[in-house]
């Protein structure tokens, strides 16, 4: 008797649980769907009413968008070159640092690690006034250098990789390599890097997405429209003066989102695993 009551109760809770999840599912997808649908509708249709069914004005919207100089290809390659460089620098030098902190017993290593843990709690925005003034004084505004090179020092990535190395890296391998005559850099490249691969992949995705989505720093530093990153181009859409083309705006935003969505759906397994592993937030 007890079990049947429990059974009914189970059915009900399962329905409720699936219901809530379905609701959240819709909540996550709906805005994207509206966005994509509106990208295919004309400004007038959008103003007139709301619809879930795509229309036929995508080409028209695209023409409007490109006629306004919304150079998405340019924005894309700008964002891509910055993000790829950032990701590479961040991963390589973070791995180097993490390896150094784990393998070598040098004076000050505890202090450096404490510093890294501390910096994790400092909001990045704290330093941006100083950073901006510094960049201004050395004349590097409107240049990608200040957007890319700070990635060499990424405390969050170092922290994550260090934990990973501690958990997975058999130190005897280093000793063995030394006996074989490998120098320290070679050991790092040949032995540590392959072991770090899964962790690097995880952090790589986050670093890439973080850099791709970075808005404030390029907004402060970049002035030439040709050098604008994708997020900066997107906000230009809102700033148009003489006429608001809603269809064009939606299409522009869609075009910036779709590539990321596709990459995400392909890599979602790794990304989710990465979130679970590190819980690192940008």
């Amino acid at each position: 008797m007890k079990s049947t009551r429990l059974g009914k109760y189970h059915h009900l809770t399962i329905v409720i649980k699936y219901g809530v999840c379905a609701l959240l599912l819709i909540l996550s997808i709906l805005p994207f769907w509206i966005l994509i649908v509106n990208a295919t509708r004309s400004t007038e249709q959008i103003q007139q009413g709301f619809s879930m069914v795509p229309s036929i004005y995508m080409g028209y919207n695209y023409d409007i968008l490109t006629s306004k100089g919304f150079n998405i290809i340019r924005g894309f390659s700008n964002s891509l070159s910055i993000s790829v460089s950032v990701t590479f620098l961040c991963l390589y030098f973070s791995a180097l640092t993490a390896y150094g902190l784990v393998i070598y017993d040098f004076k000050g290593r505890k202090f450096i690690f404490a510093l890294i843990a501390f910096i994790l709690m400092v909001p990045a925005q704290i330093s941006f006034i100083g950073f901006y003034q510094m960049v201004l004084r050395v004349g590097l505004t409107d240049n990608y250098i200040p957007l890319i090179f700070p990635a060499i020092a990424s405390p969050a990535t170092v922290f994550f990789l260090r934990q990973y190395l501690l958990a997975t890296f058999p130190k005897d391998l280093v000793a063995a390599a030394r006996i074989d005559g490998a120098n320290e850099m070679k050991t790092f490249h040949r032995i540590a890097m392959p072991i770090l691969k899964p962790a690097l992949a995880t952090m790589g995705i986050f670093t890439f997405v973080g850099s791709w989505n970075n808005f404030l720093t390029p907004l402060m530093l970049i002035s030439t429209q040709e050098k604008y990153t994708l997020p900066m181009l997107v906000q230009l859409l809102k700033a148009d003066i003489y006429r608001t083309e809603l269809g064009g705006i939606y299409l522009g935003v869609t075009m910036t989102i779709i590539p990321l969505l596709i990459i995400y759906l392909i890599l979602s397994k790794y990304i989710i695993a990465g979130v679970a592993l590190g819980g690192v937030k940008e």
Partner: protein
Amino acid sequence: MNQENNVGVLRIKKTSKRMGKAKYSKYGYFFVAPFIIAFILFQLYPIIYTFVLSFTDLAGWETKLDFVGVKNYVAIVKNSHFIRALQNTWIIWVINFVPQIAIALMLAKWFTDTRIKLKGAGLFKTTFYMPNIITAASVAILFYTLFSYPVGPVNQILMKLNVLAEPFDFFRSKTGTRLIVAFIQFWMWYGSTFIVISAGILGINPSLFEAARIDGASSWQIFKKITLPLLRPITLYVLITSLVGGMQMFDIPFLLTNGAPDFAVETLTMYIYKQAFTGNRNFYVAATASIVLLVIVLLISLVIFKFMNRHNKEGVNK
């Protein structure tokens, strides 16, 4: 969770010393040198420079630093815009974080409950996390058009459903706009929090649940008595990262309404940005506000860590 690792480090250190690897230790400097140099150049120096600027009157086109003592700090605590930005940041963060952690916990509990297996965890995780990877600039524009007045999709839907008799100007309502900003933050982050907490729950020794179940505990009891206490470190981790992130909130409110209506969603970072890049371009005010923000975040993190350590110890003692 750091404590344990630190213990681990100490142990490793001792063993490696015993093995006589001291001659290699100098390579450590070589390996961390690029990080240290970049760190000093791009993070430490700017923070110190910001700190220095907060004692000057640098503004506009000026390049010469004139020191004015602590005047700026005295002025900023009396600046109504700064105080308001501080309040806004907190309000928006709280109304985004409370439902975020609650729903994340709830979902994590559901999806890790071994008695009632919910299917499709992978699909749900993938979709719930999806908003997080999208550029905040795009998200802000998307929501701006969704909630626009009088003919945005949200207004149209609500009128069709007879919830509203006439369109509601969300971006003219302080509460409305704050709720939208908080909702976007929630929407972007609850999936991530859910996944992190799920991982935390899965990391708990299953035999604990097993034992409790044999003792006849209900799933709610198990959640309350076993899961939640053991999740405390990871919850606090989520809390701190969310807080540090929340204090930096910029993209969404900036692109949504630029602070309107009546500065209701002007956050601290927006205040800093506006001081530095609009009006008279008061770098000294922006720098002062940055340092105050730094102190606030550090104090809070310290309190949370203290809190966490105490509870960890309690947990051990029990």
